[in-house]
């Protein structure tokens, strides 16, 4: 134990380029056994590249990986596991078709290079691992049938199993309630006591401050700041991460008092995901909706848009109830939806920017006999590129050539083109740089001023406070609280959330 506690794990002067562009330029970081270290940084700061290098997915161009006494110029995934590096990815990386026991036990077998496995040993390994973190889950159930919170615990049990020396946790608290986070932190304390070097990747500053001893802040592939956690202040961390003096002043436009309702959601229920959800949105109003992962917020948004089944309840647009469970009915009624994952749900990556811009409502560009009116198509494309200031030389370039912020504008534009009464935005600024984020929020504001209503679904509390007139919090599929404009406050909202 003593040797473990003094051992150091980390990297020295890691450089990694992808085809000429630097992802990491000379990053060093060191974590002692029994220490909890935080890596903080924006999207694209190099966090995930660093994790991938440590876990053997990428080979660095130069630099050293140090694990205790040993140094490596690069690791294979197998070596990384053998040397005790474990990563809990945000998606948990569990195999849905295998049982809980197997998901937990397989890495141990791989570590020991066993070719055979016995059911008894598998179950034993799994039971031990779960006992170690004090969790009780049916080990014979296939992972596909398990809840998100349990999956998180299984992933932790698996990683903390035999031989882990350095444990990365990528945004481990996203899906958890406050109670579950407490439990997680207890587990982290336990493995800390066993001499494991733990690395927390998180942007939730409260939690970082609670659990971490040391911190490294990355920006554009470089370490901009590191040191003891206690020497950092909240504001300092976010400033170091963005390199900007972030102003998060409210930009929500003034809302005219009116009793009109663009949309009324009444008793929307799909058991067990959500039940009896009712709210309404006024013209030009920006309503925020937040909740933990798995709270039902995404399903609710998709249910209104007809992409998630609804058992009972009503959605009334302009006084008329719309046909539920149908996106085309929602579209016809004037509801638009920007899904949370731009790359897999929002964009046709390899297709041109133009084709992406017109992807909703292609039938508008139909002339006689189903023919495509190409000139009108091109005009519309040019107009939206100009309107939303999408930075591109040629609308026929693939949309994958754009930056995250510009891609998000393309998704936004394809829906704005339909001029919906209600626009549902799910995570509108995820993975977008600070500058673009600001501009996207301004686009929302401008449209709201023109009378378009918005439902913004997000777990970015500061963003909601910046832009929304009202925020509802979803918990276990129900509205747990509503906050009016005057009540919007970061600490209060965070508290309600967890």
């Amino acid at each position, binding site marked *: 134990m003593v040797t473990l506690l003094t051992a150091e794990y980390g990297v020295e002067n890691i450089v990694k380029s992808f085809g000429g562009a630097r992802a990491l330029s000379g990053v060093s970081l060191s974590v002692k056994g029994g220490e909890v270290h935080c890596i903080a940084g924006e999207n694209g700061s190099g966090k995930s590249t660093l994790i991938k290098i440590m876990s053997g997915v990428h080979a660095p161009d130069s630099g050293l990986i140090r694990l205790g006494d040993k140094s490596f110029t690069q690791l294979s995934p197998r070596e990384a596991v053998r040397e005790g590096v474990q990563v809990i990815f945000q998606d948990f990386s569990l195999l849905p078709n295998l049982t809980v026991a197997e998901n937990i036990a397989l890495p141990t077998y791989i570590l020991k290079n066993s070719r055979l496995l016995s059911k008894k040993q598998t179950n034993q390994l799994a039971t031990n691992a779960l006992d170690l973190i004090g969790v009780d889950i049916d080990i014979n159930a296939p992972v596909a049938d398990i809840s998100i919170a349990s999956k998180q615990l299984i992933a932790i049990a698996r990683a903390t199993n035999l031989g882990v020396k350095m444990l990365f946790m990528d945004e481990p608290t996203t899906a958890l309630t406050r109670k579950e986070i407490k439990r997680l932190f207890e587990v982290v304390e336990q493995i800390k006591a066993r001499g494991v070097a733990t690395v927390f990747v998180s942007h939730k500053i409260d939690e970082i401050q609670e659990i971490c001893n040391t911190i490294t802040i990355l920006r554009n592939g470089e370490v901009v700041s590191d040191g003891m956690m206690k020497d950092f202040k909240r504001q300092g961390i976010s400033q170091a991460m963005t390199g900007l003096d972030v102003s998060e002043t409210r930009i929500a436009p003034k809302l005219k008092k009116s009793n009109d309702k663009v949309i009324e959601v009444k008793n929307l229920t799909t058991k067990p995901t959500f039940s009896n959800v009712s709210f309404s949105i006024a013209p030009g109003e920006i309503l925020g909706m937040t909740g933990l992962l798995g709270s039902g917020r995404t399903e609710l948004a998709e249910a209104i848009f007809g992409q998630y089944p609804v058992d009972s309840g009503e959605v009334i647009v302009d006084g008329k109830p719309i046909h539920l469970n149908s996106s085309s009915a929602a579209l016809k009624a004037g509801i638009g939806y920007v899904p949370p994952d731009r790359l*897999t749900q929002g964009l046709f990556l390899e297709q041109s920017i*133009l084709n992406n811009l017109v992807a909703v409502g292609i039938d508008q560009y139909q002339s006689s006999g189903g023919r495509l009116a190409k000139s009108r198509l091109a005009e519309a494309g040019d107009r939206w590129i100009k309107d939303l200031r999408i930075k591109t030389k040629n609308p026929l370039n*693939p949309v994958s050539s754009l930056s995250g912020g510009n891609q998000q504008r393309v998704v936004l534009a394809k829906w704005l083109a339909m001029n919906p009464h209600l626009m549902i935005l799910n995570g509108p600024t995820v993975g977008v740089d600070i500058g673009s984020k600001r501009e996207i929020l301004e686009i929302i504001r401008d449209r709201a001023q023109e009378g378009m209503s918005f439902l913004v679904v997000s777990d970015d509390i500061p963003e909601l406070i910046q832009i929304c007139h009202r925020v509802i919090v979803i918990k276990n599929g129900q509205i747990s609280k509503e906050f009016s404009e005057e009540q919007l406050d970061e600490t209060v909202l965070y508290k309600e959330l967890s």
Partner: protein
Amino acid sequence: MNERFSKFNTGLLADRKITQLMIFTALTFFILSYVSKDIFFTSANFISMSYQIPEIAILSIALMLSMLTGGIDLSIVSISNAAALVASWVMTTKMGDSENLSNKWIIIACVLGTVVGVLAGAVNSILIARLNVTPILATLATMTLFNGIAIGMTNGESVSGLPEQFMRVGNGTFFGIPTPFVLMIFIAIAVGFLINRTTLGLKVFLVGTNRKAAQYSVMGDRKVIAWVYLISGLLSSLAGLIIASRTSAASPDFGSSYILLAIVIVVLGGVNPNGGFGTVTGVILATAVLQMVASGFNALRYSQFFYLAAQGGVLIFVMILNVVLERRRVNRSIAKSLRS
């Protein structure tokens, strides 16, 4: 990638893949003409090729449609044979002992043949678009089913001795050009128009690029996919009728190697098997290349089995080439996105 789609505005020649294919086609032509002057480079050979190209080209175009949506239709050959059998059965039954049949009955027979194709396509559509069965599995099943029904109905025997007028379509000429070739050009233009100039066509490309995003864009992705397999069935039945008319026979076993050939052609023609990209021109050019290779092999007295091996070899080679080029492209685009 954008080059491949810029034909949208700038016309066919700008498409780099097509240009490459054209050079490749020309090269194949000159090499074979040089190597086999007296057999390959003869008008008889060219005429015979222009009778053989259309059927496989039409089947390949049908296959291309399903591949554009990221699926695959393995049942095209079965559908084509089933349609040909039904049409031939009607004709021979109505013919009785005479040599001729009235045009009315020939037209009815052909219409029934295409109806079979559309119905078979509809079965695929229901399985794939409605019930969400994976296209490979669905069409593998229907391929067996359609073929099985055709064998069952005919006892596995072929139907031959079709009427004179019907044979004239497959073996005749139209203003000096072989009629099947004219039909192929007509179908190619129609499908080209469909995928490049209609809203349905644009949807086909988008659904093939990202089905999920198509769902969220509310473009009726199921409907698009249903249409594709329906049209694929229709085109297959047309190919079947042309085959029947050219060979004056229909058999449930005809063209069992055509599915491999069609996949080779479609992949060589630059269609992305994962969906989203491809052109009719590419498919036609690739058909010409393959047909030239086939007659070249024939002229050089290579066995038909060697041609089979060559087909497999071309398929694997083109796929490996695509993978290598794609890897380079991805690396470059990662570099690009990191720079920005």
